[in-house]
Structures are given as structure tokens and as C-alpha cells.
């Protein structure tokens, strides 16, 4: 009988804040510039240079802290984390050690197995390091170059409690965290560009045991699915060790995407002593009530709240509410359409269908497209009022997406208006009856489906413009009295 184990996961997430300038100097944070362009004496750590805190960075960190239901510190400070590495210009990173800007928060997550509350231990501010560029691969490289453009880009590190029990929960936590930060508009949260990075602490313990097992720290998981896969691998690896009566060694392991496994990087003995101490170049950070109030007023409705409200207030199915609130702009767009057009489900159908398809194809956000909320509501009304059919509407929508034109104008210019005038359709209906004697015979013999065929013929002749309901009624009147 093998013991049953419980997985314990804690995540450390580094997020680049999207301020225009760096945390301690005026250099631009823009990604993708030529190497070492966005640098100055401060972020290069030249002798005699001094850091000056960017207030906006603090604002952003406070927003994050508040959105994660943290207590915001009244008194916080910056500390130096000392270690040698070529990408670290000063050979220390300015970070926060014992007095982080925010503590004691939580994130509510939802997986297929239910709703869970994951504690957030702390949110702290720090500066990013530069980046090493190796010629070829790191082990065979003859030379390495350093790019300090990233040096001094503001980061927040968000540390979770060890409350996560499955890799799926870890993924849900990351997804929700990313969504919250996107709602706050304080980070691009782009894992490929490195603006969101995740390390994980994983351990197993026999079910029912209180003490934690020995943990491994996992690094280098560069996508959400890598986090999930890496954790799954690591849980299995530790499980196997324990089942075989071996012990888990405390160490740092790296996820190798190509090999699909985690590999040991360094053991506990090689762990750094960072010799943290308060940075004498920076004053302590004092956050008074009015500053807190100012930031709290900027806090938007958060994704979880919005999701719940969309379900309760608009009676949207949970799935729809999830998709629509899965993007702050989509949710805003939705509510703007709703001001003029009171059929939430119909709006969500259109937004999740045609709209999302086109947005994904073009890799755009809703406000980047030609569709305005006003025009979408106008178009939906035109469908309801039989001005256009649902099928024609798809065509109108595509033109609207490309051109940004008013749907009424599109219908007029393209001659797409629905024909709902009996007199106008009369002769065409008669023609089709005359041309399809077999179908007419079928209908008279009770084969109702043949009506659909005739309607189809008329729609074809009118290039979709005929009001299909009206045509159907006219055919019935003529053939089935």
C-alpha cells in the first residue's frame, strides 16, 4: 500500500510594471530596443550614481496590493539584495526584504473542482536586472554580452501562500492574477517578453500531515502551460521518490521545455546569502491615508466581481460571463452596448461569436476594430426589427469591422435591406412555385420540409435579402390553404 500524498504549491510571480520610465531613473522601459539604448549612469550602476524612486511605480504596486485584498504598509522600505552576476549592474538588486509594500491578501480562483481561496503572502517592489546574451548556447559560448535595457525596469513580486494543491489550481491562480493585473492596466503580463515570470515551490506530504515536506523550487517555466506541465512532472517525480522510500532533496530545479522534465540547478548548500540590509541611498517609503485613498478610488471593478455581477445582473450563463469578463475591454464594450440594447444574451452571442473570431484573427482588442458599441447595438436592433436577417447581419458586421461604418449606411450602400414587402415578393414567389412543380407536389402531399427548399430558392434569388419568415408564410398561404 503506497501512502497517499497531498501536493503543496506556492507561487512567486514577478511582474514588470508598465510605467513609461524605470523604477529609479528616467530611462524608458520600452521593450525590443537595440541593446543598451535605454540606459543611463543610474541603471548601469556607474560609480557615484544614485537611485530616485519613481512615484508611479509605487502607485501601481499599491493598486496591485489593493486588488489582491492586501494590507498596504504605512511604512515600507527598500533593501539591497547582494549577489554577483554580470547582468546585475550594481552587484545588488534594490528590493524589499522585511517591510514589503503590501501583505496578507488573497485571490479567489475557480477550477472544474470548485472555488478556492489562495492566500497572497506579500507584494513587494524591486528592480529588474539586465539580460545576458550568449553567442550560441550557454555551455558552448565563447563570449557573453550584457544588455542593460531591462536593468531597473520596475517589478512587483507576488508571493502566494502554500495554499495551492494541484497544478490546475496553479494555472487558475496565474490566470486570475494575470487578469486582475490586466484590469488594473499596470502590466502587459506578457510571458514571452518576460513581463510575467513564475517560479514555484512544490512539495508533497502524506495526507493529513500538517508539516510540509521538503520542497523543490522550480524555475524557467515560460508559459502558463509550462507551469502546469512542470508542476505535473515535479509532483510525479517527488511521488515516485517517496514511493520508492527515497527522500526529496531541497534544491532549485529548472523546467526543460524540450526534454519535458525538470533538471537540478543547484542544491541548498549553494544557496546565496544575500546579505539584505536597508538601502542607505533611499528614504523609507511612508504611505499616508490620503495617498491610499487616492489610489483606492482608482481601483476598477475587478474581474471576479464583474463575473459574478454579469451572472446575477444580466442572467448570463457562467460560461458567457467568463468569456466576456476575461478581458476588461470586452466587458466594458459589452456594458456599453447594453446601454442602448437590452438583450444581454444576444450581445454576448455576437461578441463571443463573430466579434471574438475576427478579433482573434486580427490579434486585436475590441476598441482596435471598426466596431463601436453604438454601431453594434444599432445592428442588433436592425435584426430585431427585421431590417436585416441574421445571415445578412454577419456580412454587415464584417464590413463594419473593417470600415468602421454605421450599419445603416452599410445596408443602404450594399443594398442589403431585407425585403419585407409582400407585393414586392409576390411575383417571385409565384415564379418559384411555377418552376418547382415536384416540390409543390411534395408539400401538397404533406412533406413540410419541401417548404424549406422553396424558401431557400427565394433567398438565393434575392441574395439573402428576402424576409425568410414572410416568404415562408406566403408559400404556406398559397399552397396549403
Amino acid at each position: 500500500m503506497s501512502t497517499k500524498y497531498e501536493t503543496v504549491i506556492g507561487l512567486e510571480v514577478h511582474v514588470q510594471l508598465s510605467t513609461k520610465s524605470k523604477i529609479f531613473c528616467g530611462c524608458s522601459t520600452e521593450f525590443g530596443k537595440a541593446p543598451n539604448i535605454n540606459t543611463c549612469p543610474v541603471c548601469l550602476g556607474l560609480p557615484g550614481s544614485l537611485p530616485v524612486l519613481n512615484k508611479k511605480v509605487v502607485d501601481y504596486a499599491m493598486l496591485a496590493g489593493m486588488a489582491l485584498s492586501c494590507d498596504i504598509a504605512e511604512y515600507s522600505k527598500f533593501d539591497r539584495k547582494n549577489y554577483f552576476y554580470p547582468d546585475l549592474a550594481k552587484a545588488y538588486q534594490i528590493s524589499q526584504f522585511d517591510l514589503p509594500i503590501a501583505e496578507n491578501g488573497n485571490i479567489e480562483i475557480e477550477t472544474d473542482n470548485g472555488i478556492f481561496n489562495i492566500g497572497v503572502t506579500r507584494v513587494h517592489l524591486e528592480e529588474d536586472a539586465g539580460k545576458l546574451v550568449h553567442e550560441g548556447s550557454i555551455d558552448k559560448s565563447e563570449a557573453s554580452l550584457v544588455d542593460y535595457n531591462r536593468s531597473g525596469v520596475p517589478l512587483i513580486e507576488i508571493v502566494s501562500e502554500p495554499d495551492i494543491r494541484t497544478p490546475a489550481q496553479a494555472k487558475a491562480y496565474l490566470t486570475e492574477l494575470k487578469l486582475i493585473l490586466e484590469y488594473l492596466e499596470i502590466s502587459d503580463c506578457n510571458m514571452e517578453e518576460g513581463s510575467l515570470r513564475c517560479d514555484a515551490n512544490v512539495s508533497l506530504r502524506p495526507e493529513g500531515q500538517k508539516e510540509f515536506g521538503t520542497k523543490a523550487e522550480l524555475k524557467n517555466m515560460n508559459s502558463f502551460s509550462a507551469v502546469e506541465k512542470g508542476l505535473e512532472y515535479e509532483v510525479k517525480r517527488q511521488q515516485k521518490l517517496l514511493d520508492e522510500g527515497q527522500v526529496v532533496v531541497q534544491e532549485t530545479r529548472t523546467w526543460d521545455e524540450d526534454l519535458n522534465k525538470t533538471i537540478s540547478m543547484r542544491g541548498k548548500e549553494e544557496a546565496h546569502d544575500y546579505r539584505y540590509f536597508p538601502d542607505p541611498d533611499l528614504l523609507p517609503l511612508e504611505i499616508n491615508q490620503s495617498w491610499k485613498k487616492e489610489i483606492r478610488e482608482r481601483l476598477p471593478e475587478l474581474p471576479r466581481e464583474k463575473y459574478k455581477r454579469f451572472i446575477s445582473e444580466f442572467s448570463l450563463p457562467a460560461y458567457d460571463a467568463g468569456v466576456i469578463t476575461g478581458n476588461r475591454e470586452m466587458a466594458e464594450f459589452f456594458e456599453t452596448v447594453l446601454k442602448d440594447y437590452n438583450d444581454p444574451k444576444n450581445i454576448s452571442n455576437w461578441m463571443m461569436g463573430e466579434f471574438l473570431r475576427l478579433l482573434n484573427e486580427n490579434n486585436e482588442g475590441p476598441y482596435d476594430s471598426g466596431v463601436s458599441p453604438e454601431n453594434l447595438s444599432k445592428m442588433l436592433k436592425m435584426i430585431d426589427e427585421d431590417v436585416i436577417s441574421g445571415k445578412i447581419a454577419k456580412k454587415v458586421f464584417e464590413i463594419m469591422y473593417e470600415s468602421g461604418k454605421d450599419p445603416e449606411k452599410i445596408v443602404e450602400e450594399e443594398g442589403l435591406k431585407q425585403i419585407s414587402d409582400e407585393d414586392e415578393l409576390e411575383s417571385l414567389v409565384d415564379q418559384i412555385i411555377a418552376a418547382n412543380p415536384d416540390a409543390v407536389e411534395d408539400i401538397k402531399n404533406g412533406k413540410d420540409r419541401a417548404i424549406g427548399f422553396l424558401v431557400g430558392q427565394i433567398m438565393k434569388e434575392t441574395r439573402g435579402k428576402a424576409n425568410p419568415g414572410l416568404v415562408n408564410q406566403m408559400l404556406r398561404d398559397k399552397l396549403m390553404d
Partner: protein
Amino acid sequence: MNLYDLTIHELKDKLNKGETTVAEIRKAFADRIAAVEDKVKSYLTLTDDLAAKNAAKYEEKKDELLAGIPIAIKDNISTEAIKTSCASKVLENYKPPFNSTVVDKLDAAGALIIGKTNMDEFAMGSSTENSAFFNTNNPWNLNHAPGGSSGGSAAAVAAGECAAALGSDTGGSIRQPASYCGVVGLKLTYGMVSRYGLVAFASSLDQIGPITKDVEDCAIMTNVITGYDEKDSTSVADKAEDYRKYLKEDVSGMKIGIPEEYFNLDFDQEVKDSVLAAVKELEKAGAEVETVHITDAAYALAAYYIIGPAEASSNLARYDGVRYGLRSEEADDVRSMFFNTRSEGFGDEVKRRIVIGTYALSSGYYDAYYLKAQKVRTLIKDDFDRIFNDFDLIVTPTAPTTAIELGTKSDPLEMYYTDIFTVPINIAGVPAMSIPCGFDSNNMPIGLQLIGPHFGEGKIIQAAYTLEKILDLKDKRAEL
């Protein structure tokens, strides 16, 4: 008197009256340097091109405080495109791409920056013998040290190789060499002078300050270099004044404290007598002199030798061979590049302090050393604040002896002890000045330290100015 012997205000006076020209001044100092530099060895780099640039702008800047005045700068103060080596091999050929704020201020004030002065490597030392390049000799006796770490600056002023100079003071590095060289040196309240561009040794203690031939020059230099700087988060807003208004011969009613615990320490009797005689003069001039009690200076020295090295171990970690300065030729990977660069690049005293500081910050020792030292620091600061509730100034010797002979202090602890009177001032963050108060039997200058409360530079200048007038030593020059 020769032009090179004159003070800033005397030179300005002559310029304004048309009795001399900037060209004459430049030539006088250049000739003086040519004549005595071999003996004194104050300078690491001469910057005649830089001086020429501002000399050419004399007409447009002639109303500025330092227009046409030759000034020397300690080599740990960054000067754009000019070597700033901190007297270290690790930065031997380092040329900063930017000016420190004080250099910009000197430049704006029309100063002719004529050279970068020798110092103890990274300002760690009390005799300038820790320079990686050469010793500087005391102009009053070439076999003696000029003090340190701003020994080059003090010697240059005393030798007439510049009109005035900038030094930096972390535990006495302006005041102690000023005392040894018989000139005036001021360490200002922490935060009064921007540290932007000053190569950091111990960030919470470092302050740039003037070394001058007299108190009036000290006030002028202080006017130029003080003021808030948005590039230095620890710089103080709205405290700078026109210090020339304190150039008054008046100490009546001024309360001066004489700390018994300091005077009870074992130090040179001639120094003690000279300082106490000067205090008597102040008393005669109307000051109220009283004994005060103060925390034993040994605690300050102990705290200093934890906090200073701790900060230094972090501040000096960046000299790793990656970006600038020395990179060891012997390296074959990143790790050996770090190791060898730092082994070859730093001198013994710097290494010693890096090791001490690294140890003090290490996990498991942090509370016992760094944290405790910070607590001691708070107590010392509180102690000074308490005294300054009742007193305007405190007077002590600047150093326990006059200038030491070169090569005689090989025990680092003995050397550390030479800063016993100056270190507590940096620990407390208060201002203090060293001014000459006499000479010992070997004709070596003795320095008196005037300590003021935070932002009490004005009171210090006023008392020092008064004392200077009474003692009438300011025109006495070293014979070279």
C-alpha cells in the same frame, strides 16, 4: 604674498579691483604646482584643459562666487571625461560619462577646476598612504602624512597648489587632514551637499565638503556646493543659506560644551593644551563654556567600523570587471574574472573592510553586528541632540595628535584610532569643522573641531571666524 598663497576672497578682491587677471592667477598656480608638486604629490590628475575652459568664460561669469578661482577636487568626485580613480587600481583609467552635482555647481560658479587630488583608496584610510599610486607628503614636513582620506586636497590647499579644494568626509576624511595640514575643513550636516557623483564608500555617512585656507573661504565654498538635488534622495530641501552672513566676530552668549569623556582620552598633551587654550580665548570673547557628558567615543568608533564596512561591502561590489575599470587578464570564466579582478584591483585596507562588512551583514551575524551598530548609532545621535538642546556648539580636538610620520602606523586599529574625535560626528549626521588652533613643538599644525547641531553650519562658521581672528594664524603658510 604670492598669488598662490591668497584665499578665494583675496583673489576675488584683486580680480575685482583689476590688480590681477585670471591668466595671472592660472600661471601663478601652474608655476606653484610645477615648483612643489614633486615634493608634495597632491595630485593624481591635472586638468588644465578644464580650467582653461572656464577661464575663457571669466567675463560672463565674473559675478559668480568662484569665477577665476583654481579649485582642486578629490578623486572620488566624478568629473565628466576626466579620470576619477578613487586612487584605486580597479578604477585606474575610469572616466565617468557625467559630472557629479558639486562639479556642475563649481562649474556654474565659474571655478577653474585644476586637478584631481590623491586620497586613500576609496576614501578608506587616515593618512593617504592607502592610495594605490603614491603617498602625498605633508607640506609642513614632507616626512609626515597629510592625513586622510582627503590628504591630497588638504595638502594642495596648504601648499598653495590650489585656492581651495573639495574633499569627502565619511569618518573625518576632511577634518583630520585639514587639521594635519593647518587648513580649514568642514563636514556638513548629512544631506546638505548632494552625493550624486561622489563614488560611494559608506552612503549613510559620506558627505562632500570644502577644504580652504580660511573660514571666509569655507563659507563661500559652502554657499556654492549646498542645496537640494533631486538626483540624491537623501539630499535636504530648503536648508541652504548664505553662510557669509555668519562671518561675524561675535561669540557672546554662545554656549560651548566641552565633552569631558573626550578630553579624558589618552592623547597628545600639546594638542589638548592648544585646544583648551583656544577655548579659553572663546570664553574671553564672551562664550559660555561648560563641561558636558557624552557617550564614550569608543562606541561610535565600533559602530562606525561595522556600518561603514557593511555599506562599503555592498557599494564596492560593482567593481567586478564587467562594465568598466580593471578587468583581470587572468580570467577564463565569469567567476575567475570576478575573483581575479577584485583581488588585483583592491588594496589591503579596502579588502579588509569588504571582508568585515560582508561578515557583519551575513545571515546569522546581522543582528549581532549591523543591527546593533544601527542601534548604537541612534543612541549617539540622540546623545548629540540632547546636548544641543542646551548648547550651541561642542569643541574637541580634531585628531588626537598632529600629523603622523609616514610609514609609522602599520596596525590598522592604531590608524582607526586617529579618527576617534571625528567619527562620532558622521555617526550622528551633524556638522563639524576643523580649524587651526596652534602648532606643536615640531611646528606641526593642531586642529580644533567645532561641532554644531543639525543644520548648525552658521553657528560653526561664526564661532570659527571669531576664533580665527583672535588666534591670527590664517596667514601662516608651510615653507616649501
